[in-house]
């Protein structure tokens, strides 16, 4: 039975009257890379801060490595790496100074050579102060600081926001390097679905504070598909097939975005609805995400008007 390293139960957070996280139930097993995706403001950072004990939940609970988030012991914190939103570090410190600072908290775990190799690879002078580094360079330092203690659980809050493709790739490489060590787990939030697709085992989708999906990446990709049906006569008014996310009508056609519907079910419904022809289209992850998190009466921003 795989151990659960991160667990939330009905985790809820209100900011005044706004609901930021809505009764989130999450279980992340050891050894996986979990991609945490959601639109801007969906509640990803809030959820992560709740998990790390930086925010207090309004209701519900959260546990990291078996320890309650509001009472994370120093011993538990030592096993958790955290890459903060925006990679905010002490601006006046030099990279070498930060290394000494971080190392003091991981006396037995710190890998000197690993940190030195990474800093050398990134071509960063140790004497340079954080305030003189670009965003990308700061992110690189942040990554090195988080990986060098060889954490059991690595939590990264939108680590590649605003970074160029090369640095994003370095972060992915770091994640893979870590996951190949025994018993490591990574949770990272991201907007770049291509990155999520590359490295994640699991995907967690959060939308307006609500957990909408929590499954393996394979299941998510298999579950959301498009069915395009064409009709000789009129398009049926009632679309009573299970799992419709969105439905777009044209004169002689119907475009359905479905979640969790079997190919056989679609075939059956197409037949019973009198469709002349139908295709099942596999979607790419980005389109799947957009359609999955779009509101019910979703329409495109700009529509083509026939003159």
């Amino acid at each position, binding site marked *: 039975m795989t151990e659960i390293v991160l667990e939330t139960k009905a985790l809820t957070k209100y900011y005044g009257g706004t609901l930021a996280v809505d009764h989130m139930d999450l279980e992340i097993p050891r050894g996986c890379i979990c991609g945490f995706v959601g639109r801007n403001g969906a509640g990803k950072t809030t959820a992560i801060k709740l998990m*790390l004990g*930086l925010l*207090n939940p309004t209701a519900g609970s959260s546990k990291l490595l078996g320890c309650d988030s509001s009472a994370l012991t120093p*011993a538990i*914190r*030592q096993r958790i790496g955290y890459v*903060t939103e925006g990679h*905010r570090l002490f601006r006046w410190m030099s990279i070498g100074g930060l290394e000494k600072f971080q190392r003091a908290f991981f006396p037995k775990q710190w890998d000197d050579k690993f940190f030195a190799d990474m800093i050398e690879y990134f071509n960063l002078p140790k004497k340079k102060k954080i305030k003189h580094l670009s965003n990308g360079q700061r992110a690189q330092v942040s990554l090195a600081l988080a990986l060098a203690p060889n954490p059991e659980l690595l939590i990264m809050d939108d680590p590649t926001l605003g970074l160029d493709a090369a640095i994003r790739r370095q972060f992915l490489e770091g994640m893979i390097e870590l996951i190949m060590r025994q018993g490591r787990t990574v949770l990272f939030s991201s907007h770049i679905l291509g990155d999520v697709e590359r490295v994640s085992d699991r995907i967690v989708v959060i939308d307006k504070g609500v957990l909408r999906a929590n499954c393996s990446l394979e299941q998510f990709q298999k579950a959301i598909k498009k069915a395009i049906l064409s009709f000789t006569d009129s398009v049926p008014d009632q679309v009573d097939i299970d799992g419709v996310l969105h439905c777009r009508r044209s004169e002689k056609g119907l475009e359905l975005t479905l979640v969790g519907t079997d190919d056989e079910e679609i075939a059956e419904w197409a037949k019973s609805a009198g469709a002349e022809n139908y295709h099942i289209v596999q979607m790419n992850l980005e389109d799947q995400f957009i359609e999955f998190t779009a509101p019910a009466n979703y329409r495109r921003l700009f529509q083509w008007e026939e003159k």
Partner: protein
Amino acid sequence: MRFSALLRKELRECLPWILLAAVVFFAFGGFFLRAAAYFGDRYWRYSRFSPGTTVSPYDLTCYPTLQTAGPWLFFSSIGLGLILGVRHFWIPHFTRTWPFLLHRSVSRKTILAAKLTAGMIAFVISLGALWVGLFWYATRPEVFPIPQAPRVFIEGWIFIMLGLVTYLGTALSALSTANWYTTKIFGLIFATFTTITLLSTVWAIGLIAVSTAILLVQIFDTFLRREF
């Protein structure tokens, strides 16, 4: 090892301000003290010791050190208190460095203790050492022919402690999660009130101790419960 790393970080972070306060006090306070010793006669003449005014014996003994260097000590101390309070507890909100700092393998109490210890060291060791040095200098007969009362020495320390109280008050204001500005700066108001009322009271030390205790309890309570 962890505490010392935190303490070292907090000290190095505010070192420029500690040095600034020390330099201001030492330079100006020292300058005026030296001037008083040097010009002696002329200095006394244009002072409140002009003929015709009544002075107490106490005035005679405390005059040179406290009147010349004293104000500089007071203002450096209060200034340092405000600046350190802001640097330690307000700036991290702007630089968004709280999450990084708080995710340390130590208890939150330890993190707070490191900050407060750095503050205390700033006052006691830097300003305190300078005050001791300056006072010793003033007691040398070739500088001032009149002995300095021990009470003068203590009053200097009271100024330093008031700076510490200001630091704590600023800290509490910065940490306070109150939304209204009036409630938020309560800590600062409390510290200011304490400072003003205690400037020349016999009960100063006792009241400083009480205010410090109150502020410390509030600071710990807020920091441990607060969200970042």
